[in-house]
Structure formats: C-alpha cells, structure tokens
C-alpha cells in the first residue's frame, strides 16, 4: 500500500526501513499512516469500547514500533520480510490491525467487559498465545523483555506514573512526593513503588511461564 503524505509517496518497505533507521520524517509518516488506517477501520475491530480507542491505538503502535526495532519486521534487499525470514505476505496495515485486535482483547479483559459468544471463542488462550507470540514476542528465547514491555503497558495509571517518574525521569522520592501529594511519607511512596514492581514481576513471570511451557 502506498501512502501519500504532503504529496510524497511512501511504500511499506520505505516506512519500515525509515522507522528502523530512526528517520524522523518516516517515523512521523508511519504514525500518520497507521492512525489514518485505524480511524477508518477500528469499528470493525474494536469491541472493548469507544473510550479505549486512543489507548488501544497508542499501545498497538508502540508494539509495532518495538517490533520494527527488534527486526520482527525488516527490509532486506528492498523486500519486506517477517520474523521467519520470508517475504512478508500481508500489508503493513493488516499487521498493525492484528496488534490492535490483540490489544483490544487485553484491554477488554482488563476492564472485565461482557464479551459476545463470538469474542469468547476468540478469547481462548491457545489462539491468543499464538497471536501473542507472533506479534509481541519474537521467540521463546527472548520472551522476557517483550513480556515486561507488554505488562508495563497494562499497569495501573498510578504505577505507571510512579515508575516513570522514578526510572525514566530519574526523580528522587522527595521530588515524586512533591508532585504526588497523596503520599504522606517517603516510606509509603517507597512501599507503593515496590508493590508496583512486584505486581509487574508476577504478571510477567506468569505469562512467560505459560508461553515457555506450552
């Protein structure tokens, strides 16, 4: 599929290659490409609810981006290839929407929404596991960090905020307390942070074990 942005034409190959090489124009172009396609087609895919639409798109695009960085999708001699080293059969947008479907399922489960019979069928672990392996993890060997990345995307907003401020923004506990006045003491904040990490670790370990042992 060809994308025209500002009268410039980009192919799937160009977009993936540009994304991998961190070319800002191409990163932006792929983002707009996926967003446009998502906005035009999400209604046929999403059942988690309209209000989660933006979150689903964001999480799905982060996964796509990660997959390109990890070369689960890559360009070799001008040909777009998949994880198995074979020429990529489908379109980039279809691949992206597969990730969207997976994220939709995860968020719907998280929100404990009532699913239709058809969706419950799709909820079976075996099918989800395959999708998960294909779209999120490269192989059983490098399941660890990908599963952590996936679990981070499902963290509560509170945990996400605390861990982001501590590990990404490198703020001290005192700085974080100043911005999150609900914590009455440093110890309370430290305990909350620890619990977030522990929850994350448990989720990641569980998923990893299920994938490896299956």
């Amino acid at each position, binding site marked *: 599929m060809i994308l025209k942005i500002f009268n410039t034409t980009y192919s799937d190959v160009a977009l993936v290659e540009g994304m991998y090489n961190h070319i800002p124009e191409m990163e932006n172009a792929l983002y707009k490409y996926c967003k446009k396609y998502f906005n035009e087609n999400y209604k046929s895919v999403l059942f988690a609810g309209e209000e989660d639409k933006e979150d689903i798109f964001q999480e799905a695009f982060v996964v796509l981006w990660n997959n390109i960085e990890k070369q689960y999708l890559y360009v070799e001699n001008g040909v777009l290839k998949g994880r198995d080293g074979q020429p990529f059969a489908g379109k980039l947008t279809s691949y992206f929407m597969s990730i969207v479907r997976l994220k939709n399922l995860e968020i719907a489960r998280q929100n404990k929404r009532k699913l239709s019979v058809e969706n419950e069928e799709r909820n079976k672990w075996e099918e989800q596991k395959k999708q998960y392996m294909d779209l999120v993890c490269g192989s059983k060997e490098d399941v660890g960090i990908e599963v952590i990345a996936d679990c981070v995307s499902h963290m509560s907003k509170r945990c996400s905020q605390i861990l982001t401020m501590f590990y990404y923004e490198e703020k001290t506990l005192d700085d974080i307390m100043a911005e999150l006045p609900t914590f009455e003491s440093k110890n309370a904040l430290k305990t909350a942070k*620890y619990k977030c*990490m522990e929850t994350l670790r448990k989720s990641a370990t569980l998923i990893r074990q299920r994938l490896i042992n299956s």
Partner: protein
Amino acid sequence: MMKIEFQDKIDNYLLNRMPENERRAFEKEMNGNEELQEQLKFTKNVRSVLESRNEKLAKMKKWDEDEQIQVSGRSRRTWGYAISGIAAVFIMGFFLFSAVFDNNNVLTGQTPVTAPEQIPSDDVLSIEKNRKLLASIEEKEIEVLSELRALTSRGNVNSAGEEEKERVSSLKKQLEDLRWSRVKAMVELKDYKQALILLEEIRQSESSYQEKADSLYQILKK
C-alpha cells in the same frame, strides 16, 4: 520473590546514586547472590522498557500536537483566503459601481450647464451672503486687474522675462475665473441684466469660459 531491602540498593546502583566504594561492595555482594542478580536484571529491564516506551509516547504526542497546529493553521488560512476573496470582490464592486454611476465627468467629460434655477453652487447662500461674495469678487478683480495692467504697461510682454510672462498668464486666468464667479453670484442674486452684460463680454473674449458664457447667455436671454 523480590526483596524490598534489595530494591533500594539496586535503584541507587542503577541510577548512579551510589558512592564508588559502595558500588564495589554491592557488586561483590551480587556475585554470590542469584536472587539479587535476578532482581537487578528485572529492574534493568523495567527501566529499559520505560525509557523506550516513554520516548515513543513523547514523540507520538508531539506528532499529534504538530498535526493539530497544522490543521488549525490550514483552517485559519482557509478562512483568511475566503475573507480576502470576499473583500476583493466588494472592493472591485465598489470601484465599478462608482465608475458607472458617477455623474460628474467620468463618462461625458463635460460639466452640464443648466437654467439659472439649476446653476450648481457649492453653498446655499443667503442674498446677503451673495452680495458680500459679489463685493469681494469685484474687489479681488480690481486687484488682479491693477497688477495685470502694471505688468503689461512696462512694454512688450513678449520681451519680458519667463517669470513675468508666467505671472501675466496666471493673472489673466485668475481674472477669467473671477469674472465667471461674478456671473454666478449675479445669477444667484437674480440680477440677470448685469449678468447678461458680463456674459456678453466673456463670450466676445477669448476666455476659457467662452462656451459656457454663450450657453448661459442664450438661456438667460429667453
């Protein structure tokens, strides 16, 4: 199972908040402790994931903001073009309208001469004012006439300097204008008899008002 007491040390180690001697001691402690190593590895991975994720989310947010700016800019430009276009149409229409319906001298190039009741005057003056106006015109006329006579009495005008020639020409023009103004004032005062006498003089002379004087003379004569 993670240990909270390990986590503080791990955090300080990863975020370079540990003095050098403590770092060495911690690394030594790690060598013999698999649990600690596992927790360190996990924390490193979480940090790496958070870094990657937040950088991506920040870029995506920037792109959305840029898109919003572009969209609102395009919208403002579209409105700007529309308003400019409408304004241009109005301005052109105004000038066209003015040109077509201007009844002074754009199309005909002539000022119409009408019957005495219709002689245009810039102000509606009372009889008293018209009399005063007439008196001042006559006074001015005498002044101009005196100066003209003084200049022409020096001899042949043709041999005079350029400046003098120009002055004579200007005075003659002034005199013509004053005489025509006097005609108009007389007509305003309905003193047609005097007006006819003056008009006769003007139409017999080589004045620029000769044609107008002739027309008005014919009208007043009737």
